[in-house]
């Protein structure tokens, strides 16, 4: 079955869903701790993409923190590189580095740069931050994997604002052309970007129709912050000969009441008081 699906069923997964949800809670706390300590960073889009990253690193992807350069590992490219705090939290909880690195997030000589740096941070497969490039690099990885007979799968998370970049669509065209069924593009569709909503800044139109028209096999997840739905989408078998595109309808700032759905929390760190409140809420 290929084409377009809406995920809403609860399927079986390898790891207990509650355990994954607890990891997601911890990563959200990490995001707050990191950005508050640095006094800078992007909490909004990190909080919206947390379930996707936790699901990938704890359940879906074949990765080993003790062997982070293993050529057979699955690859992940955070195309929306500014959501680095969510990636760093996930990598840390998965064991790629220790929590002490959070103190050096965005600091001189730290491995946790403002945007992911593959030269500095274990577990980071590509340096990103210049929007549009990550998905293109992921297409290259998937093509390279096919070329070399590497059976790995390549995952990338892109933003909805990022999808205004033409390069996203150049990369998509190439993914379909080269029949990259070893590639999964995940759209963190929280609807907001720096200057306002997507519709205010530059409307994406019918993103599902666009993805289908570009030759993707498309899955839409009604609630991209629901771990069960995210897992079901990620575990749906690949459609032979087609790249996969998963639309995660998410909430920017998810989990922190005063950040949820707020444009202003795209690239602003919480102060000490706000961080304390956020952590209290996340303790739930």
């Amino acid at each position, binding site marked *: 079955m290929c084409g377009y699906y809406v995920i809403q069923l609860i399927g079986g997964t390898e790891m207990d869903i509650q355990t994954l949800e607890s990891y997601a809670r911890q990563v959200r706390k990490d995001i707050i701790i990191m950005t508050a300590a640095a006094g800078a960073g992007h909490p909004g889009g990190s909080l919206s993409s947390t379930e996707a990253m936790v699901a990938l690193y704890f359940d879906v992807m074949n990765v080993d923190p003790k062997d982070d350069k293993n*050529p057979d590992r699955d*690859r992940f490219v955070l195309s929306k590189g500014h959501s680095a705090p969510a990636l760093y939290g996930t990598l840390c909880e998965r064991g790629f580095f220790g929590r002490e690195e959070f103190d050096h997030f965005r600091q001189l000589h730290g491995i946790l740069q403002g945007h992911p*740096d*593959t*030269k500095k941070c274990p577990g980071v*497969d*590509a*340096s990103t*931050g*210049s929007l549009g*490039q990550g998905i*293109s*690099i*992921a*297409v*290259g*990885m*998937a*093509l*390279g*994997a096919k*070329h*070399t007979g*590497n059976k790995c799968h390549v995952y990338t998370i892109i933003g909805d604002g990022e999808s205004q970049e*033409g*390069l996203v669509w*150049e*990369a998509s*065209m*190439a993914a379909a*052309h*080269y029949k990259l069924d070893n590639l999964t593009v995940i759209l963190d569709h929280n609807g907001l970007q720096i200057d306002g909503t997507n519709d205010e800044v530059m409307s994406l139109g019918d993103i599902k129709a666009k993805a289908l028209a570009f030759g993707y096999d498309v899955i839409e997840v009604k609630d991209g912050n629901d771990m069960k739905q995210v897992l079901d989408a990620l575990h749906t078998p690949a459609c032979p000969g087609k790249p996969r595109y998963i639309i995660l309808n998410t909430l920017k700032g998810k989990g922190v009441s005063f950040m949820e759905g707020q444009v202003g929390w795209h690239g602003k760190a919480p102060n000490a008081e706000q961080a304390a409140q956020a952590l209290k809420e996340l303790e739930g």
Partner: protein
Amino acid sequence: MEKKAIRVAYGEALVKLGEENSKVVVLDADLAGATMTNGFKKAYPGRFYDCGIAEANMVDIAAGMSTMGLIPFCSTFAVFAGRNYDQIRNGVCYPKFNVKFGFSHAGITLGEDGGSHQAIEDIALMRVLPGMTVLVPSDANECYQCVEAAAKIEGPVYIRTSRLATPVYDPKPFTVGKGNVIRDGADCAIFTCGIMIEHALEAADILAEKGVNAALVSFHTLKPFDEELARIYTAKCRKIFTIEEHSVIGGLGDAVASAIIGHGVEKFLKIGINDEFGQSGKPIDLLKEYELTGPQIAEKILKNL
């Protein structure tokens, strides 16, 4: 004298390299017949990837492929070094990925397509990127050497090639980062790169006829630049002239200036494209228009001695 376009040599070199190294893959953006990667495409169809008319995407795809242990050579026109600059910078150079760029049709000798297609800034753009090796072969033989060397360098390499058929000289010793002394001299030194070697040689001959004994040094590597050789000839000749088919801003002239300032230089003149765009025309007419022929170069040097 045999003439061959450096882009043709680039295409031949890729075919040879492809035979020796199975990790080499070639990417193009619908210009295989112009960049001359079509030879590789024919010889190794399974290792050639056309990325369509999407140069930026080609560069990031190459970046991704390099992480799988491949050695991608990306080819397009040199003028697009600006179009996909962000991808070269952030996608390849920032992570120090092992991607090569063989960009052709550089400079005004591209000819008739005009100023929109004549790259006079690509060397400047590439030199400023940390970790980028910048190679500008002066003839077909040097291009073979550049391609072979590029595959052995772990990291990004830019190779600038030309459309026009130009003289093929006897092979010279080749080490990345080392200039070649073409002719020794004591009255002044001419530093050149790329296809301007033909016109610099003619200028040196004219100067010799007028009793001026000019040294001529050709630099196939603009980065890392052979500062030592530039300084040796500055100490010896004191009067330095740089010749390039590129803007006088950010190219060979500036690489030389940075190397020799404070090292006893008495006279220094950069001869190239003077902060202006090119235009349509036959290559030889364009060289005359921008005062880059042998006699015009000789005249400028004589005036400044």
